[in-house]
């Protein structure tokens, strides 16, 4: 599997559109998640108020991010957690590799973390000679297949049970089957052995509470509970934007995130971890490390429009709602963050030169904004990024065309003539091939509204 690049979104998308199996899987996943989200949102009478409230809390945290981060760090440290700061991916990976080597870690179990996907932590740990095992079922499948995730909350939705069975037979020696229960059972048994022998557990973080120094991680499978309870060391990796002010704020986010992601009222498990255990004889890891990653995030604070990107709680609702994602899937974006939110986050993280096609991977229909639980105005963000890509005036032909168009549109006589001329010209001249190659251009009606009105 070659890992796709963001620089070639158009080619990636074309290839994805030709893959009928992928498109079937995407249709099922996005429509099912979308429908469940809709029902779950409707089950709360104050859904819209909750969205506004969540956004206000995120805005409050982001507008004083330095203060809330320091408060979080102070409280987490006072409870025994060890804090690490990393400016970029390389620094984050170096810190984690050093910790793993200090603890003589040979087997490392990981729970799903988009942030460590972003830093390519697994490759760094493997290069340092350590065995890393993803334990979320979807992540485990794509790790065996050596593929990146295709959806934020369902990383392996692009694979069929048949493909997964082949993979398990080849990699784990499982007898061939297409029974999903058996596939899941095989993963459970295999991963149990890894959990039993792992020296180190690495997790992500959904929310970090400034007031109490607590990290909150949510899931359905139970692998996060095992990752954060069994090994003697736990490292939690979080972007600096994950901090929220108060413990009570969780009420709003725990209502919004599961409903927006999978349509659940609440996911099966929430783990609230505050520092380390109090007594050596207690259960749980001896040490808890929390790594705070910037990697381009602090730059996004510099403008209210870009700052919104940091409010994202990684629910995946905008992916399911997006007519572009629904057709091309996650891999085409060439980034761990796909879909509408990926099209705005990836250019800001990786630099706009290498990702300049992504802000155009949208029809600006606004479906993403409608479903976003924290009301991120993604279309506005896309336009903001497009303006950064093309700040110049456009070509001479384009400027002349718009000048001509303005002239015609402001003169009734010219406008009437243009309708007549257009009906004739369209028969002979294929206009604007760049526009029409990917879209239908409807023929001009034989009578304009104006002419119909006059004749009636």
């Amino acid at each position: 599997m070659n890992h796709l690049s963001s620089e070639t979104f158009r080619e990636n998308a074309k290839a994805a559109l030709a893959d009928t199996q992928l498109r079937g899987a995407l249709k099922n996943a996005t429509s099912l998640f979308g429908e469940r989200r809709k029902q779950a949102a409707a089950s709360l009478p104050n859904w819209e108020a909750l969205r506004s409230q969540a956004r206000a809390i995120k805005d409050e945290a982001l507008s004083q991010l330095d203060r809330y981060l320091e408060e979080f760090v102070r409280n987490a440290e006072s409870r025994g957690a060890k804090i690490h700061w990393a400016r970029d991916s390389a620094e984050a990976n170096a810190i984690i590799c050093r910790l793993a080597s200090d603890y003589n870690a040979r087997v490392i179990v990981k729970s799903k973390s988009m942030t460590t996907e972003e830093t390519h932590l697994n490759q760094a740990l493997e290069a340092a000679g350590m065995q890393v095992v993803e334990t979320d079922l979807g992540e485990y499948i794509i790790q065996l297949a050596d593929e990146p995730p295709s959806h934020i909350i369902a990383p392996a939705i692009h694979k069929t049970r048949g493909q997964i069975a082949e993979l398990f037979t080849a990699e784990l020696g499982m007898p061939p089957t297409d029974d999903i229960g058996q596939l899941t059972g095989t993963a459970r048994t295999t991963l149990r052995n890894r959990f039993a022998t792992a020296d180190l557990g690495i997790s992500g973080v959904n929310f970090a509470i400034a007031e109490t120094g607590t990290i909150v991680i949510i899931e359905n499978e139970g692998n996060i509970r095992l990752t954060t309870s069994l090994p003697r060391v736990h490292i939690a990796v979080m972007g600096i934007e994950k901090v929220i002010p108060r413990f009570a704020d969780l009420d709003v986010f725990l209502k919004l995130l599961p409903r927006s992601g999978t349509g659940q009222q609440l996911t099966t498990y929430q783990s609230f971890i505050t520092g380390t255990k109090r007594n050596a004889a207690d259960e749980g890891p001896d040490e808890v490390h929390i790594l705070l990653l910037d990697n381009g995030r602090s730059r996004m604070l510099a403008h209210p429009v870009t700052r919104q990107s940091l409010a994202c709680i990684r629910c995946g609702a905008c992916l399911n709602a997006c007519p572009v994602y629904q057709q091309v899937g996650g891999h085409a974006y060439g980034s761990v963050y796909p879909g509408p939110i990926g099209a705005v986050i990836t250019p800001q993280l990786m630099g706009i030169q290498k990702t300049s096609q992504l802000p155009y991977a949208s029809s600006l229909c606004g479906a993403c904004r409608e479903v976003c639980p924290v009301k991120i105005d993604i279309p506005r963000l896309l336009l903001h990024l497009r303006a950064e890509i093309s700040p110049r005036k456009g070509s001479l032909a384009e400027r002349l065309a718009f000048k001509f168009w303005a002239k015609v549109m402001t003169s009734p006589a010219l406008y009437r003539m243009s309708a007549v001329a257009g009906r004739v010209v369209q028969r002979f001249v294929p206009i604007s091939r760049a526009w029409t190659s990917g879209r239908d251009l409807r023929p001009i009606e034989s009578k304009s509204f104006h002419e119909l009105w006059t004749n009636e």
Partner: protein
Amino acid sequence: MSSEARQVILDSIRAHLAASPSYDVEPQIFADERESDPPASVNIGGLFKQNLESVAGHCIITTDATDVLRQIITDLGVQRIAVSDAPELAEFGVVPGANEIFSFDVGITTAQAAIAETGTVVLDSSCERNRLVSVVPPVHIAIVAASRICATLADALAILQSGKELSPAITFITGPSRTADIELTLTIGVHGPQELYVIIDESS
């Protein structure tokens, strides 16, 4: 290295916030949006049961929790039973040592609170050794006093925080372990328990 990184990141946050066009956000109070408690006529034990059952958990409301627990164990026909170190559970099984946890059929714990609106049990690691017993064995049975059921998630969060520092590990559990990572097909019991029983003890 880390202290230098810390300074650079915090400086960058401050510089970029300072450069930003104004976007003032006052801390807001949303008391009016918080859901009020359900009317007294709502049976919160019944609501808890309904919500837990909707996510494939089992719930038994009883005045004799010990008897119900014995019955469940008999019906399951299980041999190897792990319990937390809660004194009232000692007669039912053994408190597993560090390396034994993977060899049990059932894990039994108490729960320190429950949430009616979601069907959730709340396990506080500072009250008993519940972290592994509640997640590793294929069946988890939790006993919670009826008086510990809160109406809402917000109530449970407030109770956890009230008057004491937060426990090192708190776990919310709503139903058995589940996944839909293969073809979006719901599968119960991937890493955690395949079955969850919650016994609501109405005796006190």
